[in-house]
């Protein structure tokens, strides 16, 4: 992930007054101490689902450290994202046990079904596909995780059914929101 990637979504993200308030709370929680930078970034990502360029620039100002330093730390760790992820994050475990039990073909299948590569998001913004090294559920390899739901003993054959369920539940949510309006 390079810093340039942040350009993609920076136009859309607005530093609203509520966002500023949330950022303020996060900074206060960590005593405005740049020694707690990783924790601050984690809290920000939890809130915004990624680290928007404007947020990084804002906190570097608040913490009185350079943006370079913040990016230096943030890009070192694979947890931090700089573009907005999809609504559902599909993660395929590439741990050793999962690898020898065929996680690559599982990842390939997902890439084919979602028509994206690992690290990308579908055009409709519904799914992001990621590969991760070991989720610690090796005895149930291969393992796939969607958001917080863990699927053990996965096979490529089970993929479609699971994705369909997420697509459906998403449609339902959208319909509910329409109705509320």
């Amino acid at each position: 992930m390079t810093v340039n990637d942040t350009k993609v979504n920076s136009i859309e993200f607005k530093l609203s007054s509520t966002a500023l308030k949330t950022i303020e709370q996060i900074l206060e929680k960590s005593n405005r101490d740049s020694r707690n930078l990783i924790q601050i970034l984690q809290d920000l990502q939890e809130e915004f689902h990624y680290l928007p360029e404007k947020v990084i620039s804002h906190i570097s100002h608040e913490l009185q450290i350079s943006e370079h330093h913040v990016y230096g730390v943030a890009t070192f760790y694979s947890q931090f994202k700089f573009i907005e992820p999809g609504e559902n994050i599909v993660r395929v475990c590439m741990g050793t046990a999962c690898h020898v039990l065929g996680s690559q073909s599982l990842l390939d299948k997902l890439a084919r079904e979602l028509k994206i590569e690992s690290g990308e998001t579908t055009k409709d913004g519904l799914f992001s596909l990621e590969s991760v090294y070991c989720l610690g559920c090796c005895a149930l390899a291969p393992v796939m995780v969607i958001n917080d739901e863990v699927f053990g003993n996965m096979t490529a054959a089970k993929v479609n059914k699971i994705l369909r369920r997420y697509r459906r539940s998403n449609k339902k949510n959208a319909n509910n929101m329409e109705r509320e309006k």
Partner: protein
Amino acid sequence: MRDFDTMVKQAKASWDSLLTQKKPVIYAGAASCGRAAGVLPVIEKLKELSKKIPLDIIEVGCIGPCYLEPIIGIQKKDAPIILYSNVQPIQIEEIVENYILKGDPQPEKAIGTLGNGTIEGIPSFWDHPMIKDQVRVVLKNCGIINPSNIDHYLAMDGYQGLKKALSMKPEGVIDEILQSGLRGRGGAGFPTGLKWKFTRAEKEPEKYIICNADEGDPGAFMNRSLIEGDPHAVLEGMIIGAYAIGAKLGYVYCRAEYPLAIKRFEKAISEMRERGILGKDILGSKFSFDIEIKKGAGAFVCGEETALIASVMGDRGMPRQKPPFPSQQGVWDKPTAINNVETLGTVPIIMRNGKDWYSQYGTKQSKGTKTFSLVGKVKRTGLIEVPLGTSLRKVIFDIGGGIAEDKVFKAIQVGGPSGGTIPSAFIDEPLDYEELTKLGAIMGSGGIVVIDEDTCVVDLAKYFLKFIEAESCGKCVPCRIGNKQLLDLLEKIASGRGTIDDFELLEELAHTISEGSLCGLGKTAPNPVITTLTYFRDEYRAHVLEKICPAKVCKDLFYYQVDPETCIGCQICKRRCPVNAITGEKNEPHIINHEICIKCDVCSMNCPAKAIRKIDKVKVIELSN
């Protein structure tokens, strides 16, 4: 200490009343592995059911045999707990009703009983073939107690080790640990007592202790299971360590991929503060200590001490030159002891039962027991604990039940990306620090991945190099660039473009990387390549000279073909093929077009007649000529 004794008495009473209460109790194995196997919907069902049948539901950690999960234990008054395996949401109502209302224990669905008493037709869980050869010391409480209830831990003699330690001089504690023979369980096997002795000896009065819970080895989950099943044991060990070295503050550095483990730690720490086990004047002594949790952010190299320290301080997790060692200059440049989760989890038991009790297990140089995660192509996968020095044969065939689908045992990969591949010929070797190092592997944190004839060692080495290439922090050139070159060479071999000269280049490069890198990651990165090249040279030669992948894993070296004799012409493969590479009329043998085929294996997986074969590319070319 009177307060503590009253607390323990109350905890024991409440534990006893739980075991003897009239209302049935359900124990649900709800560690990450249980959740992956689908225990949460089962718990939901149980909660619904509890409106109809009075039930107490308790979430416990992982008891070990992950392949049997979800595991649900049911306790009825005056009877042992019955453990049921592979419980699905649709079955649970029937199981509970049959046992609790109708009195049928359903031995066919049970795997064993826990606790006093017997039930006809169901053996004791401790006699289960995966369990009976194990010695559970660190894992004693996992899957038995509620990890979110400090009283359960206290009832199991928790914090007695701390109480004893606080009554001793710090030097005495260090001596006890030193003489127990406990060595670091994170990989290198450095004597824990010695590490503490060095940290204590530093003149600087401000000292720190760090619990390394950054279990990054792919294929290893022992620490996760221990934290999720018994977090207090690890934290008790940490307080004892802090007392021994003289630290006032400790950090738990836990990887972000383990959200449940972090939650368990957080809950345990708040309970400890409430009970006066953490904070000012611990258990009425003059010793004060507190713990902060630091979440990792996804960097394998942060398992390395100096990188971890940098990360704790909010920086990029890059290792630095040693000396100064962390025991001299660690976090905030102060003397710091960094111990692994399992090491700390073992400390309270040693304090409680004494050094002699602990050192009865293990070999001359490797004392005690060690947890391993046993995964891959083995029948019974899960978390195990055995005395150090136990033979591989015992672990894989007695405990693990042998190779899945009765295929041929090929090797084990131990120690993760820093470890090595040990072939089946060494099956009678003992598992201990010295022996594994002699064989070119390392103990590592204890992840054992069993591989069979269907695993290609070139592909396996490639897999680890890919991992290392992504995780190298980039500081040392040999590690950053050398591993990329190693990977390129392996990819060349795997694609059939390798030459015999490449072996020498691989070895030379591996040596340079190992010599020229600063930290453990770089130094051990070539181990998977070196061990596979040493023990499986024939397989490498097959890739290079014959252009064959004997395990049929390297995709550039084989084709998928339909066996016309076996094919029933059902057209399932034709319909399922994502790239329309298969042609053929109904009831006629089908044909796969090699030019279009992407080798996704979908046809083979779906073929009802098992007519899809992998054929060496060279043979196909020979035949067509």
